[in-house]
């Protein structure tokens, strides 16, 4: 936790893990399987719902879930920059070519560009979808301890994908720290990643090349250590996830019912007025 992240817009896995391990809110105490199922449901809601009002309700619900876990909202706002950037990058290609009633227009290099009602609605919908999914995803990882994530991964992923996932989750911290150290060392010598194309590219390649060499050497050492300790292809799980309670089943049942109504309304019968 003493290390700082080297990117402002990308969630720091160390910080995410810290919140999962150190907090004890109501959301932290929800069964990890229940939260995992809810995450799947939220993704399905995001894909199926088309109505902007329902999407707004979904976004508010996910933010409320995040806030109920007593996680910092300012951090979430900062981490929103990545999905917002991706949505806007895509939207700028579509927003001005959607047909519909014009809201605003301007001329660029002799070409008239117009923002339409449909174009604006497309951006808003894509943004709400992205932010709802990201908020719940972060809430899940910031409230579920590593040992529990390890159990979920080992039960839901095929071999050896579960082992790769679990090992790389651990290695991510060390590798990120190592790369951050090299970047800090570069900055402390008044260096930067923008120093002319050739120098910048060589510098970047040196950092990554070194990281790969260290990674391979570490991997070889770790493999020998694992084999010496009798690794047989399965990581022993030190902790079990308790069985889901009736409350967990009730919560999942309720959300599943809402999802079924939304799906039925979209694909079979227009119940909500879409």
């Amino acid at each position: 936790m003493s290390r700082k992240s080297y990117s402002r817009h990308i969630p720091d896995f160390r910080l995410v893990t810290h919140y999962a391990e150190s907090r004890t809110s109501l959301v932290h105490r929800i069964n990890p399987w229940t939260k995992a199922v809810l995450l799947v449901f939220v993704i399905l809601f995001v894909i199926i719902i088309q109505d902007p009002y329902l999407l707004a309700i979904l976004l508010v619900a996910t933010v409320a879930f995040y806030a109920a876990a007593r996680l910092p909202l300012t951090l979430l706002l900062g981490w929103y920059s990545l999905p917002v950037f991706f949505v806007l990058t895509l939207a700028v290609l579509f927003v001005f070519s959607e047909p519909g009633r014009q809201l605003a227009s301007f001329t660029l290099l002799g070409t008239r560009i117009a923002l339409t009602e449909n174009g604006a609605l497309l951006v808003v919908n894509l943004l709400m979808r992205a932010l709802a999914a990201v908020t719940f995803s972060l809430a899940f990882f910031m409230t579920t301890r590593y040992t529990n994530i390890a159990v979920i991964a080992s039960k839901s992923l095929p071999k050896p994908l579960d082992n790769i996932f679990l090992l790389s989750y651990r290695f991510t911290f060390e590798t990120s720290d190592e790369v951050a150290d090299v970047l800090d060392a570069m900055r402390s010598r008044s260096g930067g990643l923008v120093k002319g194309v050739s120098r910048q590219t060589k510098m970047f390649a040196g950092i990554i090349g070194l990281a790969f060499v260290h990674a391979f050497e570490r991997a070889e050492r770790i493999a020998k250590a694992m084999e010496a300790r009798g690794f047989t292809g399965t990581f022993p799980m030190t902790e079990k996830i308790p069985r889901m309670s009736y409350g967990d089943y009730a919560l999942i049942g309720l959300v599943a019912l809402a999802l079924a109504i939304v799906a039925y309304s979209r694909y079979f019968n227009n119940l909500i007025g879409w």
Partner: protein
Amino acid sequence: MAHVHLEDGSFTLFWVLIWSALAAGLVSIALYRQGRGQIPTRKLAIASMCVAVGFAAFQIEIPVFGGVHLNLTPLMGILVGPALGSLSVLTINVFSAAIGHGGWSMIGANTLVNMVEVFLGFYAYRFLRGYAKVERFYSGFGAAAIALTVSALVAVLIVSVSEIQGSTQTRAQTMANMLVLAIANIVMGLFEGVVTGYIVSFLGKVRPDLIGESAPARTEGIEDRLEVAADV
């Protein structure tokens, strides 16, 4: 850089299922090629380290054009091969989805795009270096540039076929719009090609065994040892 930077809800459920099923099929082949789950511990550790470094490299923001990052997927293909590389990129996509770098429902589509990069990176490098006997830098550059150019077009194809949910534009219009992004990705791919070329040259000097070349015999100090042996 060439992956589908789309968030959840951009595709309809039908296309999410199609791309996920295709990716699952290819991942199953990769798993089969790796020995039906019985992967050697060394390979397991190397694949995991590749994921960790790849994910760390994702996070290094180069402050140009508002902030860009590299994929290093062709390099991963060169280093660990197409099967293990495919499993690695799938894991990177899962990590990325967890933090909003592409949606959960985009894991299938992104894995397909990244698998193209891994496959072409591996085979193009092998051809250029092994058969055409091109220098390490140009082999690395060529392999990454080819892989990323093709994958940028595959990404455009995936988005165009699937169409953006909520958009009224046709597939042809979507493709025309996405081509702008593809051109940007191809330019970035050339930059990544140069980076890959430098990394491959660097690895060739310090650990040639990592890029499938035999390490030179260690001869440092051999004269001293021969002299000592003669004295004895």
